[in-house]
């Protein structure tokens, strides 16, 4: 039993424990839920200490035969890319459960909520560390079920609509991915005579262009819906608006990252030819998403919807960075995933707190709250600034690296028949950089409407509208320290993913070169890295 197995199973054990406690014992239930999340986080720090940043490949692997006849292994492992995403997951979960508002205003069925959140955590960690496509798919779908319940049970008024939309949308994508996985499984058998779902084995499979393209599109659709990439994003505002605070935080903070993580882990390395051919197209969609999401956020009157659309914009940066296919861009994308988890997670926690105090999310209902709740207002402003991408806070580093990487991406893109479009990466960068202006516009407008101006509405003066107290101090304190720390000293994070990203890009380029040399070669295995 390696450390990875432990942290994957810990939340499940916690969930089992929660189920043994009577449902009336709400404080015990909350305590077990939070305690499990904290223990999982502490355990995940061992991964950090055991991780060797000088290696590119997978580490801390666990490999047990699961279903021998099908070639399914319980194979887990971690590299510099998944390392930080696992830590983001284990970090955000206790912070979320610490917030009294996590469960939403329908403060019911605490026990079930804790079970759902812990199962969700196990699913997320498992999907990040799975190195067997079968295991990955199991965890991938496992995440879906608790989130469906979290939105559907503890959500707002239109929770059923939102949760069904979320589940069906996501399922459509993932079923196509399943088909592609089975196709790869069959092709691998045809090429080698043995059955395997192993990620490392399957990713060595080199397919001719057309099947590669179809498999890529099947994977890409699943991931694009998760991210979400424009125009597949409309489930997101609905899901966020209806989800309880805890659901929103985890949805934006971690779940969306599975889309971008999927591109990075599966879609690119496994189908280099197809990824290369479609990179400019996806980059264009990402840029549209950046600008479109920002413009949509600009006209929202519901604070939660505004933050949801800002996610579309921010995640567009991540996709752009990944498809710049260079070290800086991909590193920036990974960093931006983490930064977005912190800042947008923080924004949702803040909006949740406001809803708890004021029972509204309509920006027009607020005004002058700084006078009433100064500490929270200051905290929220810091998180807003992190999201705006102010240098010195977490949002800047990722955006800067992504834009810088994409700006020089014409080197990477000359492989993909984009030579004629020499200025295109530059043009895309310039267009996306306009989000620097737009994000300030929508987020500062929101800030002003909530906190500034006269405190003249009676509902805002109500004594019920009180400042941070108790555990809320911890929640926002932790988020702010993380945002500041990541902005001032990001290098420890970048250094640990450096080698893995470099290895991934190198092998991508090598395989691309090989495939270009002989595009119609039948399915075969690419030689393993020396």
């Amino acid at each position, binding site marked *: 039993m390696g450390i990875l197995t432990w942290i994957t199973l810990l939340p499940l054990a916690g969930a089992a424990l929660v189920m043994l406690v009577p449902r009336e014992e709400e404080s015990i239930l909350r305590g077990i839920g939070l305690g499990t999340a904290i223990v999982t986080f502490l355990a995940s720090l061992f991964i950090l200490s055991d991780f060797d940043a000088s290696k590119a490949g997978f580490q801390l692997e666990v490999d047990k035969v699961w279903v021998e006849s099908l070639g399914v292994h319980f194979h887990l492992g971690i590299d510099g890319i998944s390392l930080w995403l696992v830590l983001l997951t284990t970090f955000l979960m206790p912070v979320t459960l610490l917030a009294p508002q996590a469960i939403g205003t329908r403060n019911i069925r605490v026990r079930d909520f804790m079970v759902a959140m812990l199962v969700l955590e196990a699913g997320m960690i498992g999907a990040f560390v799975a190195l067997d496509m079968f295991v990955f798919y199991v965890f991938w779908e496992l995440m879906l079920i608790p989130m469906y319940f979290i939105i559907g049970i503890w959500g707002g008024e239109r929770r059923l609509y939102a949760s069904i*939309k979320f589940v*069906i*949308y996501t399922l459509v994508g993932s079923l196509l991915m399943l088909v592609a996985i089975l196709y790869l499984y069959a092709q691998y058998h045809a090429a080698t005579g043995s059955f395997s779902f192993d990620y490392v084995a399957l990713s060595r499979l080199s397919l001719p262009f057309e099947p590669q393209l179809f498999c890529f599109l099947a994977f890409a659709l699943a991931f694009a819906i998760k991210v979400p990439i424009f*125009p597949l*994003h*409309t*489930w997101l505002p609905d899901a966020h608006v209806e989800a309880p605070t805890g659901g929103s935080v985890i949805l934006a903070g971690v779940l969306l990252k599975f889309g971008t993580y999927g591109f990075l882990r599966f879609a690119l390395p496994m189908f280099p030819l197809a990824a290369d051919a479609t990179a400019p197209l996806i980059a264009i969609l990402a840029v549209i998403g950046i600008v*479109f999401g920002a*413009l*949509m956020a*600009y*006209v*929202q009157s519901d604070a939660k919807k505004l933050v949801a659309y800002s996610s579309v914009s921010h995640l567009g940066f991540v996709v752009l960075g990944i498809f710049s296919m*260079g*070290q*800086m861009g991909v*590193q*920036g994308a990974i960093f931006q995933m983490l930064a977005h988890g912190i800042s947008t997670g923080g924004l949702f926690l803040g909006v949740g707190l406001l809803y708890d105090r004021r029972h509204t999310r309509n920006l027009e209902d607020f005004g*002058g709250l*700084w*006078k009433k709740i100064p500490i929270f207002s*200051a905290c929220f402003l810091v998180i807003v*600034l992190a999201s705006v991408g*102010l*240098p*010195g806070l977490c949002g*800047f*580093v990722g955006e*800067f*690296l992504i*834009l*810088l*990487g994409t*700006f*020089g991406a014409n080197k990477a893109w000359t492989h993909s028949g984009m030579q004629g479009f020499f200025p295109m990466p530059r043009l895309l*960068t*310039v267009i996306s*950089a*306009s989000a*620097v*202006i737009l994000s*300030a*516009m929508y987020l*500062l*407008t929101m800030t*002003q409407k909530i*906190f*500034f*101006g*006269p*405190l003249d509405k009676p509902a805002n003066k109500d004594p019920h509208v009180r400042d941070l107290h108790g555990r809320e101090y911890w929640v926002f304190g932790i988020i702010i320290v993380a945002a500041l720390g990541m902005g*001032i*000293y*990001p*290098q420890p994070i*970048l*250094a640990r993913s*450096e080698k893995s*990203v*470099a290895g991934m890009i190198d092998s991508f380029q090598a395989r691309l070169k090989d495939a270009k040399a002989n595009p119609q070669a039948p399915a075969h295995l690419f030689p393993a890295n020396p």
Partner: protein
Amino acid sequence: MHAAESFNLRLIPLLPFLGAALLILFGRRFSRQTVVIVAAGAIAGSAFLAFTAFFQALPGVAEEGGLRDVVWKWIATGDLSLDLAFRMDTLSGLLCLIITFIGFLIHIYSAGYMEHEPDYARFFAYLNLFCGSMLVLVLGDSMPVMFVGWEGVGLCSYLLIGFWYSETANATAGKKAFITNRIGDFGFLIGMFLIFQVTGTLRFSEVNALATPGSALMATYHGMPMAFWIGLCLFIGATGKSAQIPLYVWLPDAMAGPTPVSALIHAATMVTAGVYMVARLHALYVLVPAMMAIIALVGAATALFAALIGFAQNDFKKVLAYSTVSQLGFMFAGVGTGNFTAGVFHLYTHAFFKAGLFLCAGSIMHAMSGSGDITKMGGLRKRTPWTHGVFLVCWLAICGVPIFSGFFSKDAIVAGAFATELYGKAELFGLSLAWVGPAVGSILLLAALGTAFYMSRLYFLVFSGESRADHETQHHIHESPEAMVAPLVVLAVGAGLGGLIGAPWGLIGHPEWNLLGEWLTSAVGPEMEIHHTTELAFMGVSTALAIAGILIARAFYLGGYRAPAQQFAGAAPGLVKAAYNKFWVDEFYDAVLIRPLRKLSSSLYRVVDRILIDQVLVNGTAAVVDLAGRIARTLQSGDGQRYMAAFAIGAAALVFFATRPTLPAALKVNVSGTTVTVDASRTGRPSQRGLTYAFDFDDDGRPEVKGVASEARYTYETSGTHTIRVTVTDPRWHTQSSIKSSVDLDAAGKK
């Protein structure tokens, strides 16, 4: 270049940051006195360190690139390796001195000015945060580190303009400042990306070292050298931060903030960041005179345009705000003509006299019960003698009266503009630029005349004659407390005599007395050589213009609004109205940019996002699936009769298909000559039910052979192709099946 790493430069910005952190976390529990001690103490410590660094550690290493302090590796991945590092050379050192010195004075002044403010700690926390960010900006060793400070000061500006946030207008002004600055930052970012792509580094010293005529920076890109585009993008950033055309609009609104803030941020320090940045990258900029010409022209145009608006403003601080915009234009004209020392010199003198003017404005408004309306002032010379004295000195300095600091620095810029040889062979897309130097110089002279006029107007309307305020306000007029007066006096000394350290001592045979020029040589190159007669001539011209401006204003406004002023206003009402309304630039931006963007966003949201994508594509797809489901659902009605009917129909269909005689998949046809033998039996399964077979050999509906045998023989009369149809009938159920096949006798025969 090698830089000494013996001095802890990081402490200079760190102290104010620590002060800010302390005040943010515990300020609400501190007494007012403790707040001031923490805040001013942090700046004092920082000032002490800056002075020590500048005068003790720096002189020995100034030629080797100055002091450098690396905190840690900040962002390093792939080809990028950025340190969080600070560097002090004479240029950044001088700026540090200005920031910490004036910053300290303004902290002291604020202690008195903000006396009645309930949110005392928050104010000082922001002020400290600002000083820290500004110090990061100037000390940044690379462009991204500078950008941290660059954005940090923008943030503090936002927070301090909107300090009294309960007024929506103040909060809106802060937001406007931030967003306008972000437009500039957008340019700054693109400039950084271009520099990195071309040179592979973002460190100032390395970029400057690489900026040589033969470098990649001079490679042509879209008709101009790459350095031109880089310079242009960065200059867009500078126009935002330093309030130049076209992005100056935020600065006048920024006067919504407390007055000490206007003095520190919006006059002395932050707004000069753009000038500093251009001077910082001097080697890159001098490579492309065309870019320099744009800077100089924008600067000169801003100087004149803002001065014109300043003619007609009636708010004390608004006049000073436009004056700042105008003076920043002078600085850009200075650096844009390659006269970096003069530009920085004016930055330094302006910091003193403009901070002094703003603090006087604060003192006057303090006396006038908070009002800044100069039409209601007058006669304050006697009521506020100290403030008057300070204002007098700063006024003469900004007008450019000899010996006062502004005289020397402004003159250095103007003379330099006429004397510059930078544009000799420069071209912008083929357009010769030799005219730029004299043109900029002439515009600046006009602007200088305008400056003398509107500043004198301000002086006379406020201090001369009798008070025009109402009785109640008049009753409360008082001089400010010592905490406010003392910093004013210090600033007045600087505004009066500070110009001497950069004066053209060469004229009287002592060039070595020009300390400023000597200091800055190692950072921005030697001072521009200006012929002594040229220098003297322009000194004469500027003095004459300054005095002319003062005299005209005296004729118009001494003791209040005099007849000539009213006649002038009556003669050109359109001009006065346009200047008063700031030439409607804000309204223009609103109509052309802000409102269309909002409209576009909301229609995109309603039409594209909600209807096209969500309703049509997403829910439309779902609706199609749903419709299919609904149709299928009608079959499952729960109605027994319908089920019985469906059962009966189904059973009948089943019987029909089950009882149809079975046929082989294809007929077996055997040809010999014109005789064919057809076998319609199913292989291996003899017919079990007494079926009858009808063989129609020419498919004309009349079977030639009928019977129970499944095989038949027929001889054709003609050759060619024939179609054979076999129909099988089950006599019990009267069901039939048929199959056909074609036969080509010719082809078969040849075989």
